[in-house]
């Protein structure tokens, strides 16, 4: 099933390539069909996934090729599998893509055929990244997922697309090269590229080697996330990308970075990660505040949403490197949350852009009186992004902050200001866009959303509510795999504390005699 999921989009891309150039309707239909089928597979996979099993499930394994090495050649496998760390992201990718295809109707009107090919190719790449259980294979898919975005940005982007594309490309290449060094080094020294085996074997490596490989991975993934201060490519890429590109970028591609940090940073090198945790927690926390301030200063609505990503992903990074159970679970759910709420916001920004062809706040105001349905969805997405309880964002943010508080009260206190500043810039954006009197005449006759536009947002809205009200349904799937990491980290922590001979860093609730705690 995993093989089918991964390669069906590729098959779709090939089929679309075979269609005649002008048959746009057919191309759109084919793209939709294939993404829907993959979404169906993704949901089936999700439903059948056993959350209590920490190991990779649905394994597919074929010998692929082998690399020369000492003392014996290193076999590289085509190995796919899904575990608690990847299941939510796989499902998110699968569910998001049909909606992305649906959204293209509004803004992709030239070279539709090519666009669909790249989009489907990208899906193969992204699913491959999350499903790979072999490091070399992972790297292959990682690179594969970048090429399509590069074209989507460069061909269908906005006015400054060349600048944005170049920047994106250079950054990405730099990150990938660094990561490649790590991949090669690791595979070669341990004589295997199987991720499960590697995860078990890294502890044998000398500390310095671990640290260097961790650094190369962490840097590569940090650029992707992006972690402060590597974030400047993001605002440009988002601003210039077509709506659908932005949605995929925010919804899935950035998650490849946080996913990598979790699986290959914390999962493979818990010892180094523990030492680096204060740095990353700090970068995450500062990123939260920095991103919020950055967003607050924007006059371009799409750029504002892009900057908000820096802030939101700051939460994820902070939670990951808190390396506590609450922090990790919160971060994994927050990856999905960010995909949903920022995806929604990008869709909404795109919809208004398609009508007015401007992203400048000054050109808007009072939209709510002419587009009430639009206003409803925008406010909903804003609230989900602001982290209102009962919607998805709250669960993630609260758990991340709680997990961070256990590891470092200081950074939790810095991070919690994001709760305030997030409200500041998002409410400001909402007010400038939707409220007040209509000052620009062109806004008076704006058409409200049509059925397609509403329809493609409904699944996201429902997911936001679902995660907000029943987060356990989603977190239970991730539980066992994360607990496995947490257990390893906790053992390391304890060993360190013993070595230092000091009191436990992690506080335990006070012992209470005769009081029953639920």
């Amino acid at each position, binding site marked *: 099933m995993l093989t089918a999921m991964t390669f069906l989009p590729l098959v779709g891309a090939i089929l679309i390539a075979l269609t005649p150039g002008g048959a746009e309707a057919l191309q759109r239909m084919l793209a939709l069909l294939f993404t829907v089928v993959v979404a169906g597979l993704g949901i089936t996979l999700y439903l059948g996934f056993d959350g209590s099993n920490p190991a990779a499930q649905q394994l597919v394994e074929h010998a692929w090729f082998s*690399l*020369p*090495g000492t003392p014996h050649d290193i076999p590289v496998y085509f190995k796919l599998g899904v575990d608690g760390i990847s299941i939510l992201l796989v499902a998110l990718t699968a569910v998001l893509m049909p909606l992305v295809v649906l959204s293209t109707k509004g803004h992709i009107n030239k070279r539709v055929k090519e666009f669909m090919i790249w989009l489907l190719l990208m899906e193969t790449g992204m699913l491959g990244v999350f499903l790979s259980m072999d490091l070399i294979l992972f790297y292959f898919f990682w*690179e594969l997922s970048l090429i399509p975005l*590069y074209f989507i940005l*460069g*061909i269908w982007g906005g006015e400054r697309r060349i600048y944005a594309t*170049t*920047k994106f*490309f*250079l950054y990405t290449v730099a990150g990938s090269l660094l990561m490649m060094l790590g991949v*090669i080094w690791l595979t070669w020294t341990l004589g295997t590229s199987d991720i499960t085996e590697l995860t078990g074997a890294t502890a044998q490596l000398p500390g310095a080697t671990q640290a260097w490989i961790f650094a190369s991975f962490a840097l590569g993934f940090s650029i992707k996330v992006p972690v402060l*201060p590597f*974030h*400047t490519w993001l605002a440009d890429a988002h601003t210039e990308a077509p709506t659908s590109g932005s949605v995929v970028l925010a919804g899935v591609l950035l998650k490849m970075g946080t996913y990598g940090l979790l699986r290959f940073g914390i999962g493979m090198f818990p010892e180094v990660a523990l030492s680096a945790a204060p740095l990353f927690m700090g970068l995450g926390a500062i990123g939260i505040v*920095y991103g919020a*301030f*950055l967003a*607050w*200063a*924007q006059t371009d609505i799409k750029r504002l949403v892009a900057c908000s990503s820096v802030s939101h992903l700051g939460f994820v990074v902070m939670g990951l490197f808190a390396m506590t*159970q609450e922090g990790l*679970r*919160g971060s994994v759910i927050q990856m999905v949350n960010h995909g949903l709420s920022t995806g929604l916001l990008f869709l909404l920004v795109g919809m208004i852009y398609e009508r007015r062809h401007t992203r400048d706040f000054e050109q808007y105001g*009072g939209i709510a*009186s002419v587009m*009430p349905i639009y206003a409803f969805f925008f406010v909903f997405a804003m609230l989900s992004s602001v982290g*209102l*309880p*009962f919607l998805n964002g*709250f669960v993630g943010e*609260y758990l991340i*902050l*709680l997990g961070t*508080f256990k590891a470092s009260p200081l950074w*939790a*206190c810095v991070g*919690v*200001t994001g*709760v*305030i500043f997030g*409200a500041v810039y998002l*409410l400001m954006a909402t*007010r400038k866009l*939707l*409220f*007040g*009197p209509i000052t620009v005449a062109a806004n008076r006759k704006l058409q409200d959303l049509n059925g397609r536009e509403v329809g493609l947002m409904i699944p996201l809205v429902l997911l936001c509510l679902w995660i907000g009200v029943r987060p*356990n349904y989603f*977190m239970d799937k991730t*539980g066992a795999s994360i*607990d496995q990491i947490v257990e390893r980290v906790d053992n390391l922590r304890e060993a360190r504390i013993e070595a230092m001979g000091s009191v436990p860093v992690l506080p335990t*609730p*006070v012992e*209470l*005699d005769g*009081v*029953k*705690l*639920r």
Partner: protein
Amino acid sequence: MPYENWLWWIPALPFIGAIGCGALHFVTLSARRQGREESAVTRAAAMLACAAVAIPFIFSLQAFNKLKGLSPAERVLESGAWDWIDTGSFAIDVSMVVDPLSSIMLLVVTGVGLLIHIYATGYMKGDPGYAKFFAYLNLFVAAMLMLVLSSNLLGMFIGWEGVGLCSYLLIGFWFEKGWPAEAGQKAFVTNRIGDACFIIGSFLLVRLFGTLDMSDIGAAVPALLEDGSRSFQLFLAALLLFGGACGKSAQLPLFVWLPDAMAGPTPVSALIHAATMVTSGVYLVVRLNPVFAASEGLLLFIGIIAAATALIAGTSALAQRDLKGVLAYSTVSQLGYMFLGLAAGAWASAIFHLVTHAFFKALLFLGAGSVIHGMHEEQDMHKMGGLRRHMPRTYITFLAGAAALSGLPVLSGYFSKDEILAMNFAQGGLHLGLWVVGVATAAITAFYTWRMVGLTFFGDERFDTSKVHPHESPSTMTIPLVILALLAVGGGVFGLPPVLPFTHIFEQWLAPVTAPGDAILFGDNRPHLSHAAEWALLALGAFIALFFSHKGFHAYKHGKKFDEVLAAKNEAIYAKLQDGWGIDSGFKLWLLQPLRLVSFVIAVIVDQFTIDGAVNGSANLAKACGSKLRSLTDGGVSNYGLWMGAGATVLALIWISGGAA
């Protein structure tokens, strides 16, 4: 004890009502677009919204009766739990709990809420967002009930944020005008400052108790205090939660949003910004009274903040010309009283004042709404006058509310205010200082209340009688006024002072909830007043209320002249009072603008020039080194393939050399 799962319906019904009204709103919109009649739809929305509050009101009565049938120690009804969040080591289970405290809040929220809903069916008539208004109002009631009923602090936070959201939506209800939207934004953001404190406070509680279940926390406090080493953390947690309460309940310095919140429709001001939402901070403290009782220093701090708030807001109310502005500052000031009661450990008195205040302040707001309605949206009292002749029913009920607010003897406000002051007096020490401020504020309250009455209803008409024809409001609006007036006048019977030969119904009813806090704070020696002292305080309260009411009324019953006299006497001070002591402008100048500046500095100097500059700089360097790269960005597939092939070759080379080594 069997689970009372029907309790879930209490918040669920208004929530369903909100969804229904929201759907009806979109129906009215499409009806309007197609030119169809929409009055049937709006009527349905009004009915639905009222029913969605009326049924929970009946349920609340039912819950109250059930509690009454139990022995005091067993007075708890609990529903089955909803396992909201569970990470393994941290779990949030929320159940709906009705105990004596929440039963009172339930009745206030649904009872006063229902009256305000009925009033709003008349007040909002003809508004294009009629159904939407009721959707928000229902949603508010649902969130408020969640806040009140939740067994878990984080469950309470759902309601806490939910009411904040509704407040934001309803303040900005007339968003086309611009400034209401800004006021709503300000309310939300200011509240969020408190919420951030609330969140950190909850983390400390998790750290201390391993749970956020409020009854478990309360039960565990004594054991924690015996240990002693963690009492500072407990103090910190309580302080942070009080920070949250400051945001919601408009205490210094976070009260700045409440005067602006008057931009919303008047029923909203009555329901959210007087009777219910703004009191949730008081409710939080009483709910967690053992946590707050654990630190006397903290209680004193709360008292100082509360006294300062009461005084600052009270004096600001003196100089407001906007009818709703007076009521807004008055609300802030009265909330200060409630916290003053909490500071003295008078939990029951604070709740008592919360309830009487809900009656008379909702009444005054609705009365003000009726006036504004009759005056064609005029809010400036200097342009009113003589309205008692035009709006007799509004006038009479408004008098009842004013009398209760100013604390005229035997009305509800008299008893509840007196109790709070007496408790501070009885504690002695620094609380005596708080008492003095409280008494001074009582005098100010009486004065501004009757100034308001005089300016609005007495003297000559200061408006163009040929253009504005004030008229009495319809009975959907006046009937709630009459009911609230009766409650405002008679509400005192629930809490008669101990010196009189009646039982203090409130204190007795709340005793099971407040006992743990009392035990921690006072042990066995609860401060006590002699009968003589009590009579003296009652007499003093009566004298102050009567004297200053008289003064205020006489200064303004003939017109607005006294305002001009005051303004002329000391212009600077008067302007400062009108501006609410300049705290709001201070916020803008010292907090908002610097932060705004920081954001621009970050965006332009740090981000664009420094970080991005470094990035682009290195890129340009690279570009200069290899101009070939440019050809890549032309978008040719073959080129890219070439590069990929080259990359693969390099990779392979490295590999082979590595293998060879």
